[in-house]
């Protein structure tokens, strides 16, 4: 009896030893890993193909046309057309978004993270901000059309402009990125440890003094990264600008900054949209060149934001 048990035990332990020590090749596992790697590489390859496809058209075109592409305005003759107004419009819009959305967004985030107690109203505002961040860009365009163009048209763009001004476009974009600025700032504020605040309160500082001198300096890199990224997003956005009437045709230039605010406007992505729709081949080349400038700008801004984050990211 006991001999039999021993024999079974011996075969079992022999078998377990073999199972544990043998290096069976895990073919399925390797295949699975390869498949996952493929999905990632595929996503990245799309980016590469896109850049190559745009660059292949845009670079010879830019070399051929030279600097005139940047100084020429909109024209129905492809040889005379350029992207000057798009560059100016995008620069104004970018500045506008930063000037309006950054202070409002940071202020709102400071209230939500530093001041607000956990009440029903606070929770409601928080949910509301998160939902605003998910509202499609085109719906912000409809908001801009209804409020900034039609309701406030006499202020934003009087006369023949009919409200379809740079001011209306800039306000629409600023409202659109505001929730993103708030959310990224909230995350940056949350990452600052409580002991930093308590040190401030301990020496009798008020809440605003603690925020200004303790919390904000530590949160600044995160806040800047977030706002830079939201500006990049605003600069690439086309749909809301089309809704508030960004011009896809001729545009007069001239006048100072304040005049320009109440004038009709265009932007780089709007120009791309206008040129892509044209049948002539040279307009397609021009669209590619405009895209290259737009992408280069957005990538540089993004890269700056990522480097900023990596450089100043603090582990507490």
């Amino acid at each position, binding site marked *: 009896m006991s001999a039999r048990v021993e024999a079974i035990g011996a075969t079992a332990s022999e078998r377990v030893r073999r199972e544990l020590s043998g290096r069976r090749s*895990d073919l*399925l*596992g390797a295949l699975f*890993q390869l*498949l*996952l*790697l*493929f*999905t*990632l590489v*595929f*996503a*990245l390859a799309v*980016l590469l193909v*896109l850049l190559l496809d*745009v660059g292949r058209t845009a670079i010879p075109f830019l070399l051929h046309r030279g600097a005139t592409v940047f100084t020429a305005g909109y024209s129905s003759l492809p040889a005379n057309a350029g992207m000057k107004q798009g560059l100016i419009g995008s620069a104004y819009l970018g500045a506008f978004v930063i000037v309006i959305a950054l202070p409002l967004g940071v*202020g*709102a985030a*400071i*209230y939500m993270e*530093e001041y*607000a107690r956990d009440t029903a109203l606070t929770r*409601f*505002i928080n949910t*509301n*901000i998160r*939902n605003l961040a*998910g*509202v*499609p860009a*085109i*719906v*912000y*365009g*409809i*908001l801009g*059309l209804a409020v900034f163009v039609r309701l406030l048209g006499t202020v934003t763009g009087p006369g023949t402009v009919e409200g379809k001004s740079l001011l209306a476009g800039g306000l629409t974009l600023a409202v659109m990125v505001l929730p993103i600025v*708030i959310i990224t700032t909230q995350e940056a504020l949350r990452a600052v440890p409580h002991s930093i605040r308590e040190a401030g309160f301990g020496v*009798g500082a*008020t809440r605003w003094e603690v925020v200004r001198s303790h919390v904000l300096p530590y949160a600044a890199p995160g806040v800047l990264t977030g706002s830079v*990224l939201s500006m990049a997003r605003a*600069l*690439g956005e*086309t*749909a809301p600008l*089309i*809704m508030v009437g960004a011009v*896809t045709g001729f545009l007069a230039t001239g006048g100072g900054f304040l005049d320009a605010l109440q004038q009709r406007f265009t932007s780089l*992505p709007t120009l*791309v*949209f206008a040129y*892509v729709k044209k049948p002539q081949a040279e307009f*397609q080349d021009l669209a*590619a060149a405009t*895209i290259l400038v*737009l*992408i280069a700008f957005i*990538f540089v801004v*993004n890269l700056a934001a*990522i480097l900023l984050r990596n450089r100043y990211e603090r582990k507490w």
Partner: protein
Amino acid sequence: MSGALTPEDLHGARSRHRRERAMRAVFFSAAFLSVVISVAIVASLAGGAIDFLRKVDLGTLWSRGWFPRRNLFDVKTIFAGTVMVSAIAMLVAAPLGLGSALFLSEYASRRARRLLKPILETLASVPSVVMAFFALRFISPEVVQRFFGSDVPLFNITAAGLAVGLLVTPLVASVAEDAMHAVPNALREASVGLGARRRTTSVRVVMPAAVSGITAALLLGVSRALGETMIVAIVAGGTGGSLFSLDPLQGGQTMTAAITALATGSDQVRGAGPAYPSLFFVGMLLFLLTLALNLASERFVRRVRRRY
């Protein structure tokens, strides 16, 4: 030293209190502005939508196609277009996004992750009008027409859907990767300790534990795909209107493309007719649809946060 310390002495200067109250009010109004924006969105959508419903013959909301200029507002046409584009987009974005997320979270070394994740985020920052150009120049002729024959029109729903999918992929990947990364290591160690292979651990332990976040990522992806505008406006080929169709290899109209078409040249109609306010009506439908998806996804994300 004179006398005992009273609470008054600890009270601090009045001017500091005043400033504190003022700053609090400033910050509160900034936060409350988000509520004002929401109200303004709903008001501007609802105002135009009611205007539309009052002017339109309700029978035309269920007819042969979407032709605002001829007063035909078949809702199912643009809804079918939107659903087809989003479904094709998710067929691309779900496997690519989740696969990339799983690789980054479970297989990639820390250094590889630090390098690859920003590149993926860069893909997310490609403007949609650029992706539209790419779809028209590359995806439609080189992929769709090559696979499905050259009798497929250059402007078609499938090319638009594929391009939207590529645009949504990094979003899905990023949210899903966050969820998988948040799964505690103890679970992985327990699984490996029982002798499970890495694939078993990834698929049977990490993914079920992160299922809420993965669902949220997919819902967010769908919501983004529904609202994507420029790609469908340029590539889907619905200029001027479209008959009801369920063929993804033909051109078609989506909700977002219908809105831009109404607002820009192609369909611009001003005046007393129902065509112009119909853009608010479509906007309202789109808003409600994405709101429902976002609320659901928010609920799933919160469930992850509570558990770990």
